[in-house]
């Protein structure tokens, strides 16, 4: 995903702020000085926001979105499809194919 939002330099932001009648003017040198960490954080956030698609694709499969939204996606159907495919997953076959169900302890 690419960030297409318009960007402004800190100086431009400070100038725009000072031109408003009901705000305290900000010295551009202060923005670049004492608030430098804030600026770094903002740049970092923007970098993450436009993270490569492969990073976003690595996020675990989730039913959260359709479930909380409650519309659009049938999460139970999604879950059924996942479980229907599970026996074909390599890890499932390794764990269960021709394995014993285990010694049982009888409940009286």
């Amino acid at each position, binding site marked *: 995903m690419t960030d297409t939002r318009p960007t402004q330099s800190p100086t431009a932001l400070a100038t725009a702020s000072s031109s408003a009648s009901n705000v305290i003017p900000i010295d551009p040198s202060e923005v670049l000085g004492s608030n430098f960490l804030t600026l770094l954080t903002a740049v970092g956030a923007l970098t993450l926001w436009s993270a490569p698609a492969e990073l976003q694709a690595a996020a*675990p*499969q*989730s*039913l*959260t979105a359709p*479930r*909380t939204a409650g519309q659009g996606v049938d999460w*139970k*159907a999604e*879950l*059924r499809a*996942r*479980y*229907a*495919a*599970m*026996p*074909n*997953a*390599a*890890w*499932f*076959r390794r*764990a*269960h*194919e*021709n*394995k*014993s*169900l*285990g*010694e*049982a*302890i*009888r*409940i009286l």
Partner: protein
Amino acid sequence: MARLVASEGLDQGAVLDDIPWGEEFEENAPLGIVLTSTCDLEHGHADFVILAALKPAQAVIQASREFRNKVEGAAGNALNRRPWDSLVGLLEDFVHNANIQRYFFVEAQAALGQPPLLADFQHVVSISLGRARACPVLATLPSPFREQLVTHFAAYSSRIGVERTPQPEVTALTDELADPYHGPNGAP
């Protein structure tokens, strides 16, 4: 029967999605059911949450050695009376959770729209409480079945391997206990 119901709270018996099982399990990752005690979660004594994987019951059972042995020799899908009764006995034990073994049966149709599931006590993971709170809760296992689930887990985890008694000695004991009744050949 242990039947899942709708719920959104993190508690013992809660069914969670998005569990970090590890890279190997990302393909069709299973849901997990919380084994950690309610009181530990309620009183803030738990920093970590233990979960057991929920697997599709039919696939697990039918892939097993026991199931395959029972259907071996069947003509097509038709079993004779005795093998069928034996198979049904095995399956009923699962449905009723009559035995403590590796798996715990839960019915999931109403809450998850799923065929029956098995909690696998060999496939467990411990994750931080914060991570668990970030996982969506899809359903829960109500009392007293959640306690039964954990009792089975504890019993399964604490089994002690003992030597099996030699068969001749077992046969002598069963003959003694069955007396005066005996097998079809007259002799024990």
